C-alpha cells in the first residue's frame, strides 16, 4: 500500500503543469475516458438491453432502455434452449478443474521453486518448452485419450482435460513466488520439528494466497471460456454441452431469435463478471506479480 501511495504522489508530479491546472486536466482526461469506456462496453450493454426486449423491439432498434421490458427471453433460453442444464454442466467443469489445478500446481510449484532434486532442471525445461503449444495441436490426441479412458463423451472428460489449459503458466507462477520466500521460514519450521508436508500446508501455502487467488480466477475464466474441447467432446452428446457451446448451438438453430440469444448470453456472463468484481483486486495484483516474476 505504501507503494501505491508513493506512486500516486509521483503521478501528481507528472501531471502538474503550468498552463492548465492539474485538476482541470484530470477532469478533461476523465471525461474523454468515460466516453471511450461507453463505446468500449456498448456491445455488452446492448446485449443486456436486448435480452429484455421482444424480437420485434430489437429489430425496430429503439433506445437502450426497453419501453416494455419482458422476461420471456430468459424463460425461453432457460427452458427451451437448456441453458439451465448447460449452466450446471459448466459449473461442474469449472469447479472440478479449479480444485484439481490449484492443488496440483501449488504442490508442483513448491518443490520446483524451493527444493533441489535430480531432474528439476529437466522438468523446468519441459514446462517452458511446451508453453507455446497451441490447443489446435493437442486437441486430437486429447480427444482420443479421453475416448480410450471411456470419457470421450462425458463431462468428467471435459473437466479433466480442462485442467491442462493454462497448467504450465500456473506452475511457473507458483514456482516463482515460492522461490522468493525467505529460507528462514522453512528453517524455523524444521527447528520446531514440523515435517515437510505440514510446513507446506500450514506455513507456505497460506503465504501464497495472492497466487492461489490468481490461479483460481484464471482457471475459472479459462474453464468458463473454453470452447474447442467442450465442442469436440459434446459433438455427439448435446446433453453435456457447456454454456459456451450451448449458446453457440442455440445461435445455429435459432438465428433470428436475437432476444433468446442475448438472454442466454447474459446468463452466461453474469457469474464470471460477479466473481471478477469480487476478486479483481487480488486478481489484478496476482497478474501483476506474474509479469514482475
Amino acid at each position, binding site marked *: 500500500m505504501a507503494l501505491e501511495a508513493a*506512486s*500516486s504522489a*509521483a*503521478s*501528481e*508530479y507528472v501531471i*502538474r*503543469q503550468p498552463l492548465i491546472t492539474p485538476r482541470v486536466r484530470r477532469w478533461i482526461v*476523465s471525461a474523454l*475516458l468515460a466516453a471511450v*469506456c461507453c463505446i*468500449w462496453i456498448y*456491445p*455488452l450493454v446492448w446485449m443486456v438491453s436486448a435480452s429484455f426486449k421482444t424480437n420485434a423491439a430489437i429489430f425496430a*432498434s429503439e433506445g437502450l432502455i426497453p419501453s416494455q421490458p419482458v422476461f420471456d427471453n430468459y424463460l425461453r433460453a432457460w427452458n427451451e434452449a437448456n441453458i439451465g442444464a448447460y449452466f450446471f454442466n459448466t459449473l461442474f467443469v469449472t469447479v472440478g478443474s479449479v480444485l*484439481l489445478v490449484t492443488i*496440483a*500446481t501449488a*504442490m508442483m510449484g*513448491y*518443490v520446483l521453486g524451493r*527444493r533441489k532434486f535430480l531432474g528439476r532442471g529437466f*522438468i523446468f525445461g*519441459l514446462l517452458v518448452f*511446451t*508453453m*507455446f*503449444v*497451441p*490447443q*489446435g*495441436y*493437442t486437441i*486430437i*490426441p*486429447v480427444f*482420443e*485419450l479421453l475416448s480410450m479412458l471411456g470419457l470421450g463423451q462425458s463431462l468428467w472428460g471435459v473437466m*479433466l482435460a480442462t*485442467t*491442462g489449459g493454462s*497448467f*504450465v503458466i500456473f*506452475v511457473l507462477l507458483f514456482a516463482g513466488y515460492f522461490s522468493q520466500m525467505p529460507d528462514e521460514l522453512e528453517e524455523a519450521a524444521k527447528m520446531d520439528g514440523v515435517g515437510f*508436508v505440514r510446513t507446506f500446508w500450514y506455513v507456505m501455502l497460506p503465504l501464497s494466497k495472492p497466487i492461489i487467488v490468481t490461479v483460481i480466477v484464471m482457471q475459472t475464466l479459462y474453464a468458463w471460456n473454453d*470452447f*474447442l474441447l467442450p465442442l469436440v467432446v459434446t*459433438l455427439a452428446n448435446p446433453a453435456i454441452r457447456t454454456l*459456451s457451446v450451448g449458446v*453457440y448451438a442455440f*445461435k445455429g438453430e435459432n438465428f433470428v431469435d*436475437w432476444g433468446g*440469444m442475448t438472454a442466454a448470453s447474459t446468463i452466461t456472463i453474469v457469474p464470471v*463478471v460477479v466473481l*471478477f468484481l469480487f476478486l*479483481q483486486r487480488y486478481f*489484478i495484483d496476482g497478474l*501483476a506479480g*506474474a*509479469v514482475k516474476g
Partner: protein
Amino acid sequence: MASSISTVPHRAGLGHRLWQSRIDYLFLVPGMVIFGLFILYPLFASQWFSLLNWSGFDANQAFVGFANYAELLQDKYFWDAFARSFIFTLSTVPAQMAVSLVFAIILNNKLLRMSALFRTLIFLPVVTPVAIIGIVMTIMLSPFNGPVNIGLLDAGLINRAIDFLGDPNLVLWTLAGIFVWKWVGVTMVYWLAALQTVPAELYEAAKLDGVKGWQVTFFIVLPMITPFAIVIALISAIGALNVFPLIQSMTQGGPYFASEVMEVYIFRNAFATLNGAVPRLGYASAAGVFFGLAIMVLTILQIFAVRYLRSREKPNGA
C-alpha cells in the same frame, strides 16, 4: 536453498539421491499426471497420428509415413491458413500492446477520477466468454439492422451497410479488431504492473529538474519498462495463437475460407468436414505438428534473442 544442495555428499549414489528427494517426487505426482496426460502425451501422440491415414475409427488406421506431410505441402488451404495465423498474430500483438499501454499510462495516475471504474470497464470484455462475444458481435456487425451499421449510416459516415463479416477482404481485420478489443484489458494490467516498478523518486527528481510530464513518460518511464515489454509480448503472442473460439463462433473460417486460421483448418479436417467427407485425423495432426514445430522454432529463436539483448544490457551478467 544452496545449503540443501551441499548437505548431499557430492558423490552420493544415484539411488541415494533419488531416495533422499522422495518427498519432492511425491509432490510432483499430481501435477506430472496432468502435465503428462494432457500436455506431454498429446505432443508426442500428434506426431504418431500425423503418420497415419485415419478417420477416427481404430480399424481404419493405416501407416502412410510422411504422405500426409507431402500432401500438406501441396495444399493451398493449408498454406493460406498457416499464413493467416501469422498475419493475425503479427497484427494483433502490436496493436494490443500499444492500445493497452496508452490506457495503462493514463490510468496509472491514481488521482484520476474513477480510474478504478475505468479499469474495470476496460477489463469487462476479458471476462466475457469468447463464444458470447462471438454471438453479440455477429449481431452488432450484422449488415441487416446491426447497431454498428445503423449508427454509421445515421451519422452519414457510410452510405451502404458494410458487411464486416461477409466480405472476404475485410473479415480477418474485423476479427483482429474484435480480438484486440477483447484482450486489451489483460495486457493493460500487465503494463500497470510494470509501471508500478518505476520508483517514485524518479518522478520527483524529474520534477525538480523541471522536466515536463510527457518527457518523463517518453524518456524515463518507457525505457524503464521496456524489459517488461518482451514478457508481455510473449504472453500476448501465446494468446493470439489460440484464436479458435472467436473465429469458430463468428465465421467458422468463412466466407470462402477467408478467415480460416490454422486451428480452424485442423478442426475442419478432423471433426467437421465439409459435405460429409470422411474425417482425416492423421492429416489434421500433420497440420498441427507442422504448425506447432514452426511456433516452437520461433519461440526458441525469440528466447535466444531476448537472452542476447539482456546480456548486452548487463555486461557483468545476471
